[in-house]
């Protein structure tokens, strides 16, 4: 099993350009998440999905869009990149269980994005 994979590993964008980050998991997890990690701030949730065809906003969703057309894939899009979106992006996935049970999230290797 590859676990959670992310493509690309590193990317440089100019302000205003668009791009899509791809996350794939082969663990048959229901839930998937996108986070960003900035120095001194830990990880912050951007968007998440609790199943194929569903998405929801997290803590910092502005400037990003997501899609979950297939259960194993979760795409993060930047329509018009800004320097404030320079960050390391992590994808995560977990089994889906109903409250009050919370499963562990497993993370991909990260994508480093630099917006000039």
């Amino acid at each position, binding site marked *: 099993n590859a676990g959670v994979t992310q493509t690309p590993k590193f990317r440089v964008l100019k302000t205003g350009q668009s791009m899509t980050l791809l996350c794939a998991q082969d663990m048959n997890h229901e839930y998937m998440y996108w986070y960003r990690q900035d120095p001194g701030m830990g990880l912050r949730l951007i968007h998440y999905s609790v199943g194929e065809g569903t998405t929801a906003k997290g803590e910092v969703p502005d400037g990003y869009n997501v899609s979950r057309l297939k259960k194993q894939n979760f795409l993060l899009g930047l329509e018009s990149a800004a320097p404030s979106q320079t960050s390391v992006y992590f994808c995560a996935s977990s089994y889906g269980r109903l409250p009050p*049970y*919370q499963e562990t999230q*497993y993370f991909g290797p990260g994508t480093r994005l630099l917006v000039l």
Partner: protein
Amino acid sequence: AQKVTQAQTEISVVEKEDVTLDCVYETRDTTYYLFWYKQPPSGELVFLIRRNSFDEQNEISGRYSWNFQKSTSSFNFTITASQVVDSAVYFCALSGARYNFNKFYFGSGTKLNVKP
């Protein structure tokens, strides 16, 4: 509100010393989960432990141990006889079972430097 505080930004120890990483949380959930992740210099996030709020037993795994105290809202992590390979950033995270279910709230991390 859900919040995780890791007040120690950076800790330096000499190999074989014991070290404790502090984690204090706030939540209005009565049932919740706490996690610790390790982020070595290579950048990936490695899951270490998950603990639910209705199990207050402390846990030991090799050189690692965790002290969960509901009365003080703390979930501290101790490494005994530290090694250079323990050098990493360690994150504590919280997820509520009712409010903001499926959302993880991360602390800002503690960077541990273990010197030979």
